[in-house]
């Protein structure tokens, strides 16, 4: 596989690091929301928020990298509609990786709980405390997350389809393989 067919190493590292964080934060968010109030619940909420802030910072770095580095081209013969769907889904994934932490941050502000990254770095509250708005934003945060889940399933399914069904060396695009390998 040529160098041109693999994402640059920083892009690969960011992709998998963020995937890992999102795969941790998502079930954590789902689980903690229904817990009765306890010290453990407060801890889990904090961990979830710390992951969210981390994702928010990483997506900024990632977006900067993506805008200044051309990704490897899709395989020759990829139909136009697939190219369009691919571009749209990737665009939406980026959008959600920004919108989800942001909605969480806004929700936290509206609920009157400042977000303090790792319990050390306080983020400014973007909204005044407003319990109703907080509940509304909780719904927005949840809806955005389930949209992300649907898109991630599509994203993974498409990668598997190209790799395993069409037998193109597709997963290597986001892999650790040496660049010079053909």
């Amino acid at each position: 596989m040529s160098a041109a067919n693999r994402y640059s190493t920083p892009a690969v590292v960011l992709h998998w690091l963020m995937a890992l964080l999102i795969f941790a934060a998502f079930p954590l968010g789902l689980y903690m929301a229904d817990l009765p109030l306890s010290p453990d619940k407060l801890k889990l909420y904090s961990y979830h928020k710390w992951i969210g802030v981390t994702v928010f910072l990483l997506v900024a770095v990632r977006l900067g990298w993506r805008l200044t580095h051309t990704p490897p081209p899709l395989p020759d013969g990829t139909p136009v509609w697939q190219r369009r769907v691919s571009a749209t889904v990737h665009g939406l994934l980026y959008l959600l990786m920004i919108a989800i932490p942001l909605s969480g941050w806004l929700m936290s502000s509206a609920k009157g709980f400042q977000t303090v990254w790792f319990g050390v770095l306080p983020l400014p509250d973007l909204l005044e405390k407003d319990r109703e708005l907080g509940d509304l934003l909780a719904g927005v945060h949840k809806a955005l997350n389930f949209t992300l889940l649907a898109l991630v399933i599509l994203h993974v399914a498409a990668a598997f389809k190209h790799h395993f069904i069409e037998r193109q060396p597709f997963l290597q695009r986001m892999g650790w393989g040496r660049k010079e390998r053909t």
Partner: protein
Amino acid sequence: MNLTAWVLLAALAAPAAYAVEYRTVLPKQSSIHFEFRQMGVPVKGGFKRFTTEMTFDPARPEAARAQIEIDLASIDAGSTEADEESAGKLWFNRSAYPKATFVSSQVRALGNNRYEMRGTLTLKGRSREMTVPVTYIPGKNAAIFDGSFILKRLDFGIGEGLWADVATVANEVRVTFRIAATGI
């Protein structure tokens, strides 16, 4: 001049002179708030309903006294979930102890309109001696009495059992109050 005229004159002159004794509390201009840290995050709350009985004469501060009774059901603990949780046995045990009270015992002038008020705070059936700093701010219509102190929640058994872990919910709670009163 007859006696009625003297009484009237005295009544009119009283607010102008500093001989006024503040004893009528204005609930709408008074407040009790608190702030504590939860996982390093400051959380604000307060009590909406409380009654204050007080007398304060700037000329005789040592004779001042104050008695505050807080309706614990009027709590804002930061969230609906926390409001409900705070009523439970591990926190205020509100069904058994619906009120918190503070009764002053001694007031000492520190100068510059600053005072030190000693008294007993009773919360969840436990009484503790407290020393509370109070700043007196004279005003045209009402005087303001501002103060702030740190309360250790575990001294009163507020947040027992699994909640006794101060790494999650800090032991120190900053209580801030403002009492507005007139001499009428």
